[in-house]
């Protein structure tokens, strides 16, 4: 049995707008294991992004508890969560969120400068196939390239988990597949626990495990017996 990375117990997240209470998460119990590639699927508002943010230490639970290995994230204050993100988590977002004033290499360096055991920025960029574009600014790159820089930035600190929120959402299928290749490559080589949120059902074919969300709850979980490589995924 692989090591347990994340464990949640009855996680509830309520947004109180004053007039109505919106249950973004209504009691989620989940375990994620080391080296696992998990895809979270569900309609908008089903709670998958909220869960990802809570796992990544960007948001707090209303009720319930979340453990990263032995660390109880629900007990950490803002500073503790900052250090948790800094040391253990890599994020990839739909809108790449690169710093426009830094080149690809420097964007990656942002992370490697503050990490205890990073890989060289150049190595991270090679891993996502951008060894030849290192000194370009974001404005000089395509969307797919920018997203791959974001992935390089996320993995350069050798995180134990990689959390991706719609990483291909803003890309066409060709560049989207390049991005998925990069994610799979990282997962295979380093055994990084990877969680990918997507609307795109086709992507589930490359996951170890697929978790469906509906109305703030997990509605269905299944394991892929046969994973497809990204190159064979079509949408």
């Amino acid at each position, binding site marked *: 049995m692989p090591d347990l990375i994340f464990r949640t117990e009855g996680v509830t997240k309520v947004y109180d707008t004053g007039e109505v209470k919106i249950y973004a998460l209504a009691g989620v119990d989940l375990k994620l294991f080391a080296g696992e590639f998990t895809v979270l699927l569900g309609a908008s508002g089903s709670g998958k992004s909220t869960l990802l943010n809570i796992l990544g230490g960007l948001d707090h639970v209303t009720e319930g508890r979340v453990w990263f290995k032995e660390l109880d994230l629900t007990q950490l204050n803002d500073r503790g969560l900052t250090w948790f993100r800094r040391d253990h988590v890599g994020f990839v977002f739909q809108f790449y969120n690169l*710093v*426009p*004033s*830094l080149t690809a290499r420097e964007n990656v360096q942002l992370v490697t400068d503050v990490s205890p055991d990073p890989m060289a920025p150049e190595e991270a960029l090679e891993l996502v196939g951008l060894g030849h574009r290192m000194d370009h600014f974001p404005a000089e790159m395509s969307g797919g390239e920018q997203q791959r820089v974001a992935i390089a930035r996320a993995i350069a600190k050798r995180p134990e988990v990689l959390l991706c929120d719609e990483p291909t959402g803003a890309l066409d299928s060709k560049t989207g597949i390049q991005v998925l290749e990069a994610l799979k490559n990282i997962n295979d080589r380093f055994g990084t626990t990877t969680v990918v949120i997507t609307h795109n059902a086709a992507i589930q074919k490359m996951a170890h495990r697929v978790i469906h969300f509906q109305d703030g709850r997990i509605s269905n979980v299944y394991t892929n017996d046969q994973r497809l490589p990204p190159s064979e995924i079509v949408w």
Partner: protein
Amino acid sequence: MQALDRKLLRDFRRLWAQALAIALVLACGVAIFITSFGMYRALEETRIAYYERNRFADVFSDARRAPLSLAREIETIEGVWAVETRVSGAAILDIPGRSKSAVGRILSIPTSGRFSLNVPLLRSGHVPDPETTDQVLVNEPFAQANGFQIGDVFAANLNGQKRPLTITGTVLSPEFIYTIGPGGLMPDNEGYGIIWMPEDAVAAAFDMAGAFNHVSLKLRADARAETVVSSLDNLLEPYGGLDAYDRSQQQSDAFIDAEIKQLRSTSIILPPVFFGITAFLVNMVIGRIIALERSEIGLLKAIGYSNFDICLHYLLLAGLIAVVGIVIGWGVGSWLSQSLARLYADFFNFPFLIYRVSYDAYIISGIIGVATAAVGAIRSVLNAARLAPAVAMSPPAPPKYKRNTLDHALLALRLSQPTMMIFRNLMRWPVRSALTTLGLSLAVSILVAATFFDDSLDTIVDTAFYQSNRQDAVLTFTDEMHESVLEDVRRLPGVLQAESKQYYPATLRNGHLSKRIAIESSRPNPDLSRVIDSDGRVVNPPANGIMLSDRLASELNVRAGDTIAVDFLSGRRESHKIMVAGTVTQYLGLGAYMDMDGLSALFRQKPRIGIVNVTLDENQTDNFHAALKEAPNLAGTTMMTETRQSFLDTIRQNVIIMTTIYVIVATLITVGVAYNGARIQLSERARELASLRILGFTRGEVSFILMGETMILALLAQPLGWLIGVEIARLMTNGFTSDLYTIPLILKPATFSFASLVVLSAALVATLVVRRRLDRLDLVAVMKTRE
């Protein structure tokens, strides 16, 4: 209310802090404009009205003793409209209840009882009966300072005869709006009074029956003062006339004129600085808002709003900021100018003050304020209007960063990525960075230019009062006296040391350049009143030469070794060629110095003295004054200890007020620039900074990027601000320097560090306020929005 108007008001409410920061800078400009322009107008109009109503003369001259019949001849000088002669004299006064002696200037009231020129305005009581010899009018400030009532009596030593004088009335005179007694540096209303006495009584007291020693002329509108002055000089020459002069050399008018000029230049020079900064800030803020609302603009256009509607919408937003600034500026300006006007009326002895609310000053400053905001906003507003709706609704292209030489240099420094972000952003917006730096440096320069005065005045005070003039009191005699009078002074109670001096009124000429001054002559190596050169050494003029103050030498365009013509205006009224032996630095007045023996040899007579400087035993001051009140031939006493104190007090008070005002102004500018700069950065970089937080950067590390940019610009602004400040200070010293004062440019490190400390602190506080918003940044929300 239309939806767009509602949006305008809500946007304005949301932006209140930034809008207020800008509005306060604009308010400074408007308030200074209203105040200085309003004051300038008030003072100028009051002066004109006062002079006109009380027929202030245009040309004046003193003479030793001229027959009254000469007045008719003076009337025939071409261009002369009216002539008034009078007898004037000096007297030591003994005021009941005041241990110290006071000094009075005695002026005659025409026998008719009616003044034709320089008409004093009766403030209380009545004009004395022309037949009486013991009734007088006094100037109102003198009466008020001494608590005199009508009917009070004081004694005056008139030409050696002590006489009781009864006050029948108080007056104000256009001749004495600003009064400084002989030897004084500041008005001393308690110790110096102007006293009007019936002509017969004055003439009898000063032995001037059938004669006059002062004449005032009023000229026709088309007359030329210079030609009248020279004709008058010719007529008075046989009667000991001292060169005639026009209003520009009349003490009271010269001071007011200097003040009016200063107010006028303040209203022209200072406000544009504030208007410029306001325009820049409006440009920055409106530009950012339009960038943020790009898709909304696209939407509005798609719905059918015209380009004009869009332009107007954002111009109105800038206009609202301007309106707030203008209203605050009007309020503060009105309050300041009215309180200052009252202060001026007190300081200058005007009988009334014409303070008309000058609507044009309000209208002009309002128009300039609105125009400033419009100019600041117009570029961004036009860009908004030019956006095609489809383009506006798609996100803007990301800002382009490129490598340049500077970038390579920075790379070589191996800076951290956050530091690189700061520098690249500065270089990405060079104009904005430069203008921000300039704005902050102006705040620094205002402080440098305002606080250097303190050190300059210290130098003046030290040189004038502790190096040059070390006497406790100065005794001035009515006439030239034999040097033996020094022995009489030494015998007065409490006198420890006594040294003699004499002033000779003279005109110095070099070619077409000439200057009327008083040459000071003294014995070598005096201890009490010394001539000090710029290195602080005591200088003795040689027996056969004359020493000039730097300013006088430059006005006459002479150097050491040159020869100048000296026309003495008293005594034998001889002209001599005298060599300039050297020049000395001098801050108060225009000095010229000669050796007493050398001068006496030139005049072929024994040394004469008119001034005695003394040091006193503090415990015997009262006895000393009591003796002075009885002394004959004494025209005045100046207590240097009091002069020093009143000079220092006045200066200190002014310096504190000035410094406070300028610290407030500099802080407002700094906060306006730094706060808006940081807010805009936060708005532009919210995503970037949130990304960094998500990547695991701490609040402190992210704040470093946000605050670093503003603080680097604030640091860069320091040397620039110092330089600009020094230049402004230099301009100010040149502007304020007159024949009365020379302001030395003394710049000490403390001046610069104080200015930097204030501006850097204000910038730090402003950015810290913005930093607090960073803590409230919703990381998830920011990341979800597409830029």
